[in-house]
C-alpha cells in the first residue's frame, strides 16, 4: 500500500480553519467592514423583458445617495466567467444595461450611509419601462417570429449576430452513427428532463470594495477565482492590474454559484469609484435566487446495443434553456458531449447541443456542470437497456464502461486524456454487497402501500481541465512554499476552499513533501498582488491541479533546504532525507544509517539565515497535462408511498475513486453532501416561472424553494461511504478529485430505485409527489 508510507497524506487532522469557524471568528465577504463604509442596493427589473426608457434618480440623490445607471458605467461587453480562451468566450452583458432580459436583472444602483437609507433611495428612483414581449419556453424561443433577446453579442472581440435566440450550438461526432444503429439488435430512445435547481449556498453573493489613493481598488468578494475577478475588473474599468487587489475571503458555500466574477462585483466597484468611498453590497436571498441557477436540460438519448449488451452507437441531442445570459453555455455543451462519451464505449457516436436564450435568470455552472444531467439520462437508459435484454444492470455497466487505458474527455472534445487509474469495478462489486443487491426483487413482486426499491448508477467527474495540448479551457495554478526559521512552513496560492478541504489538502501536501508535521504548515492569506495566477477553483481541480503546483513548489523549497543542510552536515544533498520527529515536533534532516549526521529543519533554516544563504523557498506555476476521471458509484434505496406519492430515500452507499484520499474524513463529507444535493435534484428542487409575470413561483424564498433539512434527509443515519483503492500516478501523492463527482450519479440512482419499487420509469426530475401520483393513476396494475 502506497498510503502507509505517508505521514501526512491520508491522515485525519483537525482542519486548520475549524476553530475559527466554530467560535465565530471566520470573516466572510458579508462580514467585511471598513471605516466610512457605504451600503449599496441594486434596482432590479420587475418585468422579464423591457427597454429602460428613462431613469430619474433625483430623489435618491437628494437623500444623499450616490446613484449609477448605464450612463455611469463602461459600455464594455463582458462575460462574468473567464475560464475559456477569449475566442470561445461569449460576451453579452454590461455592468448596468439599458435593456433587461429577466426579472431581477439590475440596471441601476445606489450607495448610502445605511442599508435602510440605500433601500429607501433605491425605491425612490423613477423608471419608465418599454415592455417587450417575453419568452419562457426554449422551443418557442427558437420559433421564427418569437421575441428576440439579442440582435448581436460579442464572441471574444468579434460581433456575433444571434438568430432565433440560439446562444450557441455544438455538434460532435465520431464514426457513423447510422451504421452503428443498423448493427444493433435493439435500439432504445427516450427523452429526459432535469430541473432548474438553485445553488442555495448559505451565504448570498456579497462584495466589499475600497477605492485606493493610487486610482486602484481593493475588493473582498465571494468568488472562486480572485485572479479572474481581477482581470475582468481591469478590463471593464481600464484599471492597471497592479492597482487591483482582489482578496481571497472564506466563502459561505458556492457549488458553482461564484465560479465567475458575479455581477454584483462590478456594480459595487462602479459605485465605489463614483463615491470614492468603500461600498458593501450583500444580495438578499430573493436577489440571489434571481441571479443564477443550474442549467436545466432536455435530452433526447438513443442507444443501439447488441443482444450481448455491447453498445454499437449512441446519440445525445440536448436543448439547454440558459435564461437571459450566456455565461458558459458553449463549454457546457462541449462538456456534456464529453460526459456522454466518457461513461460508456461507443464505436459510433453523435452529440448535438443547442443553448437557447429565454427571459429567465441565467443558468451557470453548478456542481457537475451538465454531468448530473447527462448521467441522469444515460444511467436511466442503461437500466432500461438491461431490462430489455434481461441482463443485470451491474453486469451491463461492467461490460461497457470506459476504463483503464481508454480515452476520456475531461472537458469536451478538446481536452482528452488516457485513464491510468480506475476503481469502477471495485466500487460496483463492493457496493453491490453493501446494499445487498442480490436481495433485490422486481417491482411486480411488491405489494402494499409502501414499496421499497434499490437502484444503482455510476458517474464520474474530471479532475481539472488539463490535457496534453492546450484546449479551449485555461488551466494552471501557481503556489509558493517557504520554510521558516523555527521549522514551520507557509504556503500561498490563489486556490479557494469552498469548504471541502482543498487548502487542508494543500497543507498536507506541503507537510508530506517537506517531511514536517501537518501542524507546522500554515495557509497564507491570499490576494491577487501576492499570488501567481490560478485559473479558478472549479472543475474538481483543487487538489489534482492546484495541489500539484503546491507539491512542485514544496519540492523546490526542499531542494534548497537540503542544499543548506548538506553544507552544514558535509554530506551530499541527494543522500539526505527529512522526516518529522515527535520529540522536537518538527522535521529532521538526516543521513540514513548515520547517528551523527542529523539536524532539525528549523536549525537549517536559521543557520541559512545567519550565514546569508537565503530562504528555502519554492515557487511553481504548473499545468497538469491530464484530467483523470474521479469515478463514483451510488446505490440508493427508496421507499415510495403509493397513497401520497412521497418518496423517501432510506439507505445509500456512496463510493468514490479519488485516487489517494488526502483528507479521508472531509472527502467522505463531500460524498454525503453530494448525495444530499443529488437527491434534491432527483426528488425536490427546481425553480419554476410564472409565464404571466416572468417571476419565480417560489417568490425567491426558502419558504417555497425547498431543500432537505436534517429531518427530511433520511440517509443521515443510513449512508455508507467508501473509497476505491487506486493510485493516480499523475496526481499529487496519487490523488485525483472528489468534489463535483459526489453528486453526479445520485439522481439516476434514485429514479432507478423508484423503478425497482413501483415499476414506473420517471424521465423528468424532480420526481415530485404530484408526478408520482399522476403516474400511479395511469398505471392501474400497481396494486394498492
Amino acid at each position: 500500500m502506497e498510503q502507509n508510507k505517508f505521514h501526512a497524506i491520508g491522515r485525519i487532522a483537525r482542519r486548520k480553519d475549524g476553530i475559527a469557524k466554530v467560535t465565530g471568528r471566520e470573516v466572510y465577504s458579508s462580514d467585511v467592514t471598513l471605516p466610512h463604509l457605504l451600503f449599496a442596493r441594486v434596482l432590479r427589473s420587475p418585468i422579464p423583458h423591457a427597454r429602460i426608457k428613462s431613469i430619474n434618480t433625483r430623489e435618491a440623490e437628494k437623500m444623499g445617495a450616490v446613484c449609477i445607471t448605464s450612463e455611469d458605467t463602461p459600455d464594455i461587453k463582458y462575460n462574468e466567467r473567464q475560464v475559456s480562451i477569449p475566442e470561445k468566450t461569449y460576451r453579452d452583458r454590461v455592468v448596468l444595461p439599458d435593456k433587461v432580459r429577466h426579472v431581477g436583472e439590475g440596471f441601476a444602483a445606489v450607495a448610502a450611509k445605511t442599508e435602510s437609507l440605500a433601500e429607501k433611495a433605491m425605491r425612490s428612483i423613477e423608471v419608465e419601462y418599454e415592455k417587450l414581449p417575453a419568452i419562457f419556453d426554449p422551443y418557442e424561443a427558437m420559433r421564427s417570429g418569437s421575441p428576440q433577446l439579442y440582435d448581436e453579442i460579442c464572441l471574444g472581440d468579434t460581433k456575433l449576430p444571434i438568430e432565433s435566440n440560439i446562444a450557441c450550438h455544438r455538434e460532435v461526432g465520431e464514426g457513423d452513427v447510422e451504421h452503428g444503429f443498423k448493427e444493433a439488435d435493439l435500439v432504445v430512445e427516450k427523452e429526459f428532463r432535469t430541473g432548474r435547481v438553485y445553488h442555495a449556498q448559505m451565504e448570498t453573493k456579497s462584495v466589499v470594495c475600497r477605492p485606493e489613493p493610487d486610482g486602484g481598488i481593493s475588493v473582498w468578494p465571494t468568488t472562486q477565482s480572485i485572479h479572474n475577478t481581477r482581470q475582468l475588473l481591469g478590463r471593464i474599468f481600464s484599471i492597471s492590474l497592479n492597482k487591483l487587489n482582489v482578496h481571497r475571503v472564506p466563502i459561505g458555500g458556492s457549488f458553482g454559484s461564484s465560479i465567475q466574477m458575479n455581477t454584483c462585483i462590478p456594480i459595487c466597484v462602479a459605485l465605489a469609484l463614483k463615491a470614492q468611498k468603500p461600498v458593501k453590497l450583500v444580495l438578499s436571498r430573493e436577489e440571489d435566487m434571481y441571479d443564477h441557477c443550474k442549467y436545466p436540460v432536455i435530452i433526447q438519448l438513443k442507444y443501439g446495443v447488441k443482444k450481448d449488451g455491447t453498445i454499437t452507437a449512441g446519440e445525445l441531442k440536448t436543448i439547454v434553456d440558459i435564461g437571459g445570459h450566456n455565461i458558459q453555455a458553449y463549454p457546457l455543451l462541449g462538456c456534456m458531449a464529453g460526459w456522454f462519451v466518457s461513461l460508456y464505449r461507443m464505436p459510433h457516436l453523435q452529440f448535438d447541443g443547442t443553448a437557447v436564450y429565454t427571459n429567465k435568470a441565467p443558468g451557470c455552472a453548478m456542481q457537475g456542470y451538465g454531468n448530473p444531467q447527462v448521467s441522469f439520462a444515460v444511467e436511466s437508459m442503461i437500466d432500461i437497456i438491461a431490462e430489455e435484454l434481461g441482463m443485470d444492470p451491474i453486469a451491463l455497466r461492467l461490460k461497457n464502461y470506459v476504463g483503464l487505458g481508454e480515452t476520456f474527455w475531461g472537458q469536451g472534445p478538446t481536452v482528452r486524456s488516457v485513464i491510468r487509474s480506475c476503481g469502477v469495478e471495485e466500487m460496483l462489486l463492493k457496493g453491490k454487497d453493501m446494499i445487498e443487491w442480490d436481495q433485490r426483487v422486481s417491482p411486480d413482486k411488491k405489494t402494499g402501500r409502501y414499496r421499497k426499491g434499490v437502484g444503482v448508477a455510476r458517474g464520474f467527474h474530471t479532475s481539472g481541465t488539463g490535457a496534453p495540448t492546450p484546449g479551449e479551457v485555461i488551466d494552471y495554478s501557481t503556489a509558493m512554499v517557504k520554510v521558516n526559521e523555527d521549522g514551520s512552513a507557509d504556503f500561498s496560492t490563489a486556490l479557494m476552499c469552498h469548504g471541502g478541504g482543498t487548502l487542508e489538502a494543500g497543507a498536507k501536501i506541503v507537510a508530506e513533501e517537506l517531511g514536517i508535521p501537518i501542524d507546522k504548515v500554515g495557509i497564507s492569506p491570499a490576494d491577487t498582488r501576492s499570488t501567481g495566477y490560478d485559473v479558478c477553483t472549479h472543475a474538481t481541480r483543487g487538489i489534482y491541479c492546484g495541489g500539484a503546483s503546491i507539491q512542485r513548489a514544496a519540492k523546490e523549497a526542499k531542494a534548497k533546504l537540503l542544499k543548506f543542510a548538506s553544507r552544514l552536515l558535509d554530506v551530499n544533498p541527494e543522500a539526505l532525507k527529512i522526516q518529522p520527529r515527535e520529540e522536537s515536533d518538527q522535521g529532521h534532516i538526516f543521513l540514513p544509517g548515520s547517528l551523527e549526521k542529523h539536524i532539525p529543519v528549523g536549525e537549517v533554516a536559521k543557520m541559512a539565515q545567519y550565514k546569508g544563504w537565503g530562504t528555502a523557498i519554492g515557487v511553481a506555476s504548473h499545468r497538469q497535462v491530464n484530467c483523470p476521471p474521479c469515478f463514483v458509484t451510488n446505490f440508493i434505496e427508496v421507499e415510495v408511498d403509493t397513497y401520497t406519492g412521497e418518496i423517501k430515500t432510506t439507505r445509500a452507499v456512496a463510493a468514490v475513486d479519488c485516487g489517494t484520499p488526502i483528507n479521508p474524513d472531509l472527502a467522505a463529507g463531500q460524498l454525503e453532501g453530494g448525495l444530499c444535493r443529488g437527491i434534491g435534484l432527483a426528488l425536490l428542487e427546481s425553480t419554476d416561472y410564472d409565464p404571466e409575470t416572468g417571476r419565480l413561483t417560489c417568490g425567491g424564498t426558502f419558504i417555497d424553494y425547498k431543500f432537505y433539512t436534517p429531518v427530511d434527509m433520511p440517509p443521515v443515519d443510513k449512508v455508507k461511504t467508501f473509497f476505491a483503492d487506486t493510485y493516480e500516478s499523475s496526481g499529487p501523492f496519487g490523488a485525483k478529485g472528489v468534489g463535483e463527482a459526489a453528486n453526479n450519479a445520485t439522481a439516476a440512482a434514485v429514479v432507478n430505485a423508484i423503478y425497482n419499487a413501483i415499476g414506473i420509469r420517471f424521465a423528468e426530475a424532480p420526481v415530485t409527489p404530484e408526478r408520482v401520483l399522476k403516474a400511479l393513476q395511469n398505471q392501474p396494475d400497481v396494486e394498492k
Partner: protein
Amino acid sequence: MMTYSIETNVNGRPRAAEVTARDTLLDVLRDHWDVFEVKNGCEQGDCGVCTVILSGKAVNACLTLAVQANGKDVVTAKGIGSPKEPHLLQTKFVEHGAIQCGFCTPGMLTSAKVLLDQNPKANRQEIREAIAGNLCRCTGYKKIVDAIEAAAAKPES
C-alpha cells in the same frame, strides 16, 4: 421615526442601542454591534444561520424584534466557547468534520447548545429535530448529527 433604548447582554458584555420598532435583533447585532458571527442568510426565518440563544431559548435573530431582546441575555457561537477554551460541541464539530463552508455552523452550534442544555442525553432523532430549522447545503447533515451526538452524554445502558 420614534426610537427605543434597548440594553442587552451579548456573550456577557453589556450592549445598548437606539432602535426603531421594526429593527430586528439581527439588524442590531450585525449593524450596531458588529456581532458578525451571527450570519444573515434569508431574513425570513427559513435558514437558521442567524440562530442565537435568547435567555436560554434558540431563536432566529431575523424574526426577533430588537425590542424583544431588551433586558435579556444573548449568546452566540463566540459566547459558547473561545479558541483557547472551546466548548465540547465546538471541539466535536471540528473533530467530526461537521464543518464545510462554516456559514451555518454558528447557528447549528447555538441550536445544539440549547438542545444539550435542556436534554443532555439527546438521541439522534432528537438532535435532528432540534436542528431542523438550521439548513446546511454542504454536508448532508450526517457529520453534524454525529458531532452533536458525540458531545451529548451517553445514555445509561
